[in-house]
């Protein structure tokens, strides 16, 4: 069995000034290439967990190992560099920098990470071509679309540009935080299919977060956030045991 690419142990996180922790996770492991669906209601702390996995936030205790490296042991500067090198992230909406073009948005991660720049350049002669190649895979290479200001793209188009940006330079981990919530059902399925295909090609591990149970079907595994997070659940199990 391969080493887990994401490995969380006895993690505890609270916002500054909060007495009760928001997150208490005993154990979470995701193996390389796995496509995981993390389901939970909004506001339950899913985004906070993503922040921890991506190294933007620091836990009070516990360990987070990514590709065998401990995020907790890193300085915040190395975590930022690590994130630039190994993660592709797609948000719910408004993913794009409004004053950059479609191509500039897609190639943006290569400005923050030399490693991803190198990997992108190994596939295409230059970054713009690589961006176009990825956009092509997402049915977005049409000149009429590419030359538009990003603010004039439809939400679905914006999310595909964001996906291309997350995929450029083949990061090991792709995090998608409710990326399809503003799309209709048909678009949703198509988008997830695209994500899968690209992850397969890049050998990336996908951590897909949503509140929408209807999306979980194609994933390798579904994790219920409420089962994962044990905070407040000091009470919850008791309640369960009563019933």
């Amino acid at each position, binding site marked *: 069995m391969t080493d887990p690419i994401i490995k969380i142990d006895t993690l505890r996180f609270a916002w500054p000034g909060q007495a009760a922790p928001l997150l208490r996770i005993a154990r979470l492991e995701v193996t390389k290439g796995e496509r995981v669906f993390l389901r939970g209601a909004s506001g339950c702390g899913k*985004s906070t967990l*993503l922040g921890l996995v*991506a190294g933007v936030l620091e836990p009070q205790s516990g360990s987070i190992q990514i590709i065998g490296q401990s995020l907790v042991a890193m300085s915040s500067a190395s975590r930022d560099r690590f994130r630039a090198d190994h993660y592709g*992230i797609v948000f719910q909406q408004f993913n794009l*920098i409004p*004053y950059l073009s479609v191509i500039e948005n897609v190639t943006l991660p290569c*400005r923050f990470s030399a490693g991803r720049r190198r990997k992108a350049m190994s596939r295409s002669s230059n970054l713009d071509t690589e961006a176009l190649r990825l956009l092509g895979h997402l049915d977005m290479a049409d000149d009429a679309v590419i030359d538009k200001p990003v603010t004039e793209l439809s939400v679905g188009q914006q999310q595909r540009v964001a996906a291309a940006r997350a995929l450029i330079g083949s990061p090991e981990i792709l995090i998608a935080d409710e990326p399809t919530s503003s799309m209709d059902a048909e678009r949703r399925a198509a988008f997830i299919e695209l994500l899968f295909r690209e992850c397969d090609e890049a050998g990336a591990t996908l951590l897909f977060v949503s509140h929408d149970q209807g999306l979980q079907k194609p994933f390798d595994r579904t994790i219920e956030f409420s089962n994962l997070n044990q905070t407040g659940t000091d009470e919850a199990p008791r309640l369960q045991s009563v019933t």
Partner: protein
Amino acid sequence: MSIATLAIKSFRNRKFSVGLAIASIMLSVALLLGVEILREQARTSFTSTISGTDLIVGARSGSVNLLLYSVFRIGNPTNNIDWSSYDEIRRLPGVKWSIPLSMGDTHRGFRVLGTDDNYFRHYQYARERQLSLSNGAWFAQDDETVLGAVVAEKLGYQPGDKIIVAHGAGDESFITHDAKPFRVVGILEPTGTPVDRALHVSLAGFDGMHSDWRGADDDNGHDPLASVLGDAIPVEEDEHHEDAADHGDAHSISAFMLGLDSRAAAIGLQRRINQFDHEPLSAILPGVALLELWEIVGLVENTLFAISLLVITIGLFSMLIILMASINERRREMAILRALGARPGHIFALILGEAIFITLSGIVLGIALIYGVLVFGQGWIASEFGLFIGLELFTPNLVHVILLVALFGCLIGLIPGIRMYRYSLIDGMTVRV
């Protein structure tokens, strides 16, 4: 794309608000510099109105008053000085030269000054600069006049023109000396002092106007020159008319200036003149009186400076307001950049860099603006206000002011910078809209 290119593209996206912020800094810097330059020039101009004169003597009055009417040609002498007093004092040992001054008449709003050759020879302004003629010659006859540069330019006079002088200091005096025109024989080079705004005539010519006026009034028809000076009595000084016959120039004058062999003797002579037996006189040291006067004018100067400081404060505040407003718009942008691997330091630098850019380009544009105004407005300011504005913008004082503005601009940039830095830590990757 480096952080800098990101910043530049982000600017372009917010051209209007960034442009407003730059404009507010630009205008306030231009105003501040303008006021500062005017202040310095006004002071230099002011203190360089008279130079090389050791004492100014007039009828007993306050020193500022005497300075105002004798040098700045503002207000009127309280009383005249008898010619014999002047004659006695100018012959005292240690007196190198003397300039008699008679005033009280105007020509179309400009003062007429009765004096003699010594004025042209000894009057100095700025750093011991002497008067010089741009055109013509100094007057030799009693019906000749030499014009200050502004008078000639404003009224469009050329040598050879005949002009008529009115009695009294008002702009539109109703008694005019119609019968006695003066002929323009010379025009002085501009000096940036009240000299530019005066018409210079001989003492006899000056008094002659009054003899003529008197004669016309009496309607006795005798030749004004033949009446000599026994009749040439301006009304305000009848009691001295018997002295007038003692000399051929004038019977009384308004004030006089003295140059001494040794400057050190000025104080002693000042005391002596102040205790003069024949009539009450005041002697002043021009430098001291100028400082006294500048203290009064300085109030205005300080007020101007305070106002321009307020303007710059407002300019910096408008920049802060614009930056703070942009922060909320840009929170999402910053979260995206964080997710892509931007460090909180990058985010901070992005915001602070913007403030620095706005401040510096505002300052540069402000300097350019005021410089342009000065280059194009120099002539107008000189002719309109008699202020000669130099183009040396970067006096140590102004450099300090500019550096202070730059420093405060950058310090103010820290406020949105720190706020965004903290947002970027708290928000993490959560895109807040």
